[in-house]
């Protein structure tokens, strides 16, 4: 079974849990005490991932330490539709958004780690970089909407959407509001409306999609 070294509050770990859920792939979860234990920085963990980052995905002798590579691996194994269309333009656009998701992690993600887990750094710069990235995402998604689209690439959700979704949906944890980004908000709703969508703390499902619970 594929094993995920996991931390429940990590946006990047959630990215893999979400992808696996959407693909109906069962993962074996190994919880890592990221905070406050900093177990990902331990000598033992360095044997698995010298960079000391989460998540880590292990399948037999394959060890992946970059979340975008994990998305590609899971989609190649269990749902190639999620790789996006394979024409040259679309394939390049998927790569663009996989790389762009790194910018989201380095800005919105760091702002959230600062506010939630006491990371030290330039919070104003992280938030400003986060807004700059959200402006780019908003412009791209608006253009997609003008063309009748919903997703970042093609006519169906892909690993591009899943790569970018967590840090955007969690941006308010880092003090960055999505109020000014209507197309981004509607896109996050579309992802949360997907069959088999799973939650994490800070990202709830769309309650309105299910009937109100009956009270006995």
């Amino acid at each position: 079974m594929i094993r995920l070294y996991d931390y429940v509050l990590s946006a990047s770990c959630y990215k893999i849990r979400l992808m696996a859920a959407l693909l109906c792939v069962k993962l074996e979860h190994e919880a890592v005490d990221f905070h406050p234990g900093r177990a990902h920085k331990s000598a033992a963990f360095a044997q698995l991932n010298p960079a000391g980052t989460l998540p880590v995905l292990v399948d037999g002798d394959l060890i992946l330490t970059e979340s975008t590579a994990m998305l590609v691996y899971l989609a190649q194994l269990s749902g190639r539709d999620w790789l996006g269309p394979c024409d040259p333009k679309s394939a390049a656009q998927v790569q663009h958004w996989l790389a762009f998701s790194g910018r989201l992690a380095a800005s919105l993600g760091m702002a959230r780690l600062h506010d939630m887990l006491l990371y030290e750094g330039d919070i104003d710069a992280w938030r400003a970089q986060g807004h700059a990235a959200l402006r780019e995402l908003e412009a791209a998604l608006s253009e997609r909407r003008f063309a009748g689209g919903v997703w970042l690439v093609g006519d169906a959700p892909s690993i591009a959407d899943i790569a970018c979704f967590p840090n955007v949906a969690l941006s308010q944890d880092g003090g960055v509001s999505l109020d000014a980004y209507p197309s981004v908000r509607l896109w996050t709703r579309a992802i949360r409306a997907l069959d088999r969508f799973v939650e994490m703390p800070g990202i709830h499902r769309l309650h309105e999609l299910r009937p109100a619970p009956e009270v006995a």
Partner: protein
Amino acid sequence: MTQRWTATGLSQDLPKAVAMAGHWQGHDLAVWRSASGRLQAWNDRCPHRGMRLSHGFVRGETLACIYHGWVYGADGGCKHIPAHPALTPPATIRVAAFACVEQDGVIWVAPAETVGAPVALRGLQPLRSISLTCDVVAVRLAEPALSGDDVLRGLVQIGGQACEVCLLVQHGASGLTLHALCAVGADRIAASRWLEDLRRRAERKGAA
């Protein structure tokens, strides 16, 4: 008193059964559309614990707070408290409503007692809402073809063609928002790129 109407969003950005944040002159609003399409703008504060109702969720013709699930009906009155399912909530638990109308693809809000209609915008289609870190003066400096204060209008060059645009100005706690419209039939992708470029130039003017 038609000038009291403020654009707070575009219809295309608020589908049925969705809530979003809006504001009118410093008042935070929860603007939401019911499952049947009914549009409302309320004070963005749940009477229970003060949570923003714009974070809430729409079920049918009601808006529920995300915090403890208190349910508010079309008149703003609390209809149901999940923790006390047998209780009929007292009529005093009520969210204050603002006037809210939709015209030309724009969502306009004003205080409840406001009469009259917002300015009519004929021949224009909604484009996008964008936020800026500069003021309106910087926007006019960046694009001298635009004139006006609350409604910036003008004929600008988009993709090598003259195109009428209209920018509805909204002042908020976090800065300036422009709700942009462009001539019906104009290429909205080209117009959106023009708008992005205008924002970059205006913010440079504003910082200078």
